[in-house]
């Protein structure tokens, strides 16, 4: 079989076109990069006359208000650059200096402008507005940010959830939980969880409502936050969901949470879900949760897992047993003839003992 030859003029033209395209791409990348650098330099130059004043105010050392007056006197593009720098600093400091900087933004109308920007057509502008309102910890913005949780742009929804967390008003808790599962994709679980944890103990009722949400993503976040934030009043609902929720991720999140905030009453349920008829991810999570729970009553269930065909589950069980009773693990290893100096044998008890030694948990 012969390959048809490409005529030389066609080949030269194709190579030339490819070369021109490559050169254009390179020029484009260089131009964009240079443009950004020029822009950054320009902003740095505009900020330079005000930077020391920003540092003085941020450090809480502006005793005669001279720096604040100079910052307030910035106009035009310089004022916009100073405002952006202030928003950046508000993510790094708190206390009286942060409050002083927020007052400056409020006086300059930036908060009112951000509230209005939340309904602008440009999504970047809406996202920046949500960010500014969060950084300024403006309680009056809560209803507006709750509305922004339903924004058509994911970026805006995420910034709104984060902002609600920064403000820390529990009124935002239930809407944030709903927003995790209300849209596709919803507010990212990690952002929602961090925001909820920033809202304090007053979100307990919202979490219990979230555990009954029809969407499993919301239930999962509510379970994780219940555990991480030690919301013990969520326990009855966590137990019920661990037993019969149709979503496996929700069940594992409940098991994890019960490991953190459960008690002796939860040993039996967690132990039951380590058994062979339960899904493997749930078995593994329950084994770890039994160790986390710290109840010696969990030892028998964990002991039966040491010879499980799933080596990871056996390792997790051994690690959990070490947390409950290092002595039991040593005794068990000795009784079974497991030599804890030889990790190459690969028995989960040995792996757990070696790991515990590395972490300094046992001598």
């Amino acid at each position, binding site marked *: 079989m012969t390959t048809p030859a490409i005529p030389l003029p066609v080949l030269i033209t194709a190579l030339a076109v490819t070369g021109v395209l490559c050169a254009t791409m390179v020029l484009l990348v260089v131009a964009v990069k240079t443009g950004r650098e020029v822009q950054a330099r320009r902003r740095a130059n505009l900020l330079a006359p005000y930077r020391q004043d920003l540092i003085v105010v941020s*450090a809480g050392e502006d005793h005669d208000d001279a720096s604040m007056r100079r910052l307030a006197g910035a106009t035009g593009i310089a004022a916009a650059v100073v405002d952006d720098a202030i928003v950046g600093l508000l993510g*790094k400091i708190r206390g009286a200096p942060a409050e002083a900087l927020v007052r400056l933004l409020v006086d300059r109308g930036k908060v009112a402008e951000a509230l209005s920007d939340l309904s602008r057509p440009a999504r970047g502008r809406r996202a920046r507005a949500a960010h500014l309102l969060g950084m300024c910890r403006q309680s009056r913005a809560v209803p507006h940010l709750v509305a922004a949780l339903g924004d058509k742009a994911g970026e805006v929804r995420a910034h709104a959830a984060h902002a609600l967390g920064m403000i820390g008003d529990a009124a935002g808790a239930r809407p944030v939980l709903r927003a995790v599962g209300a849209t596709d994709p919803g507010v990212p679980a990690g952002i929602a969880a961090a925001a909820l944890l920033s809202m304090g103990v007053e979100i307990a009722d919202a979490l219990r409502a979230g555990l009954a949400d029809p969407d499993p993503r919301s239930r999962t976040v509510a379970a994780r936050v219940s555990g991480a934030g030690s919301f013990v009043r969520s326990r009855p609902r966590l137990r019920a969901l661990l037993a019969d929720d149709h979503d496996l991720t929700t069940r594992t999140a409940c098991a994890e949470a019960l490991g953190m905030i459960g008690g002796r009453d939860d040993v039996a349920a967690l132990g039951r879900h380590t058994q062979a008829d339960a899904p493997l991810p749930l078995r593994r999570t329950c084994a770890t949760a039994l160790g986390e729970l710290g109840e010696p009553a969990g030892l028998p269930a964990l002991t039966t897992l040491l010879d499980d065909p799933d080596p990871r589950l056996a390792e997790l069980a051994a690690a959990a047993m070490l947390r409950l009773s290092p002595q039991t693990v040593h005794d068990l290893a000795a009784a079974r003839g497991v030599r804890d100096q030889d990790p190459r044998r690969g028995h989960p008890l040995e792996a757990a003992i070696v790991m515990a030694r590395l972490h300094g948990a046992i001598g």
Partner: protein
Amino acid sequence: MNGRPGARILVAEDDHDISDLVAFKLGQAGYEVRTVDTGSAAWEAFQAAPPHLAVLDVMMPGLSGIDVLRKIRESARSTVPVLLLSARSRDADVDLGFAIGATDYVIKPFSPRELLHRVTGILARTP
């Protein structure tokens, strides 16, 4: 202020806003502050002129604050107090910092005033 006026403090922080702010705040309180913006530079500065206290950001390019703290605790000047400054606020992160030998742990966003009180307190308690 009774926290050893004039004490040398090493501040390692890759965010220049924060390092300038901390240096200014501590400088105003009478301390002699040196700032660096990488973990490696912090370790070099520590070896060249051991400070009375080090303020280390946890997340820095190259060597992290945790890495530098570990090196300090293994060095001949292992008792120099170290305050970790970090955005990592989970219990596990704080536990790790103290387990490696941090004297104190301040979470960002932080209050500059509170940071100064902590620095002053540590230096006052340090022999």
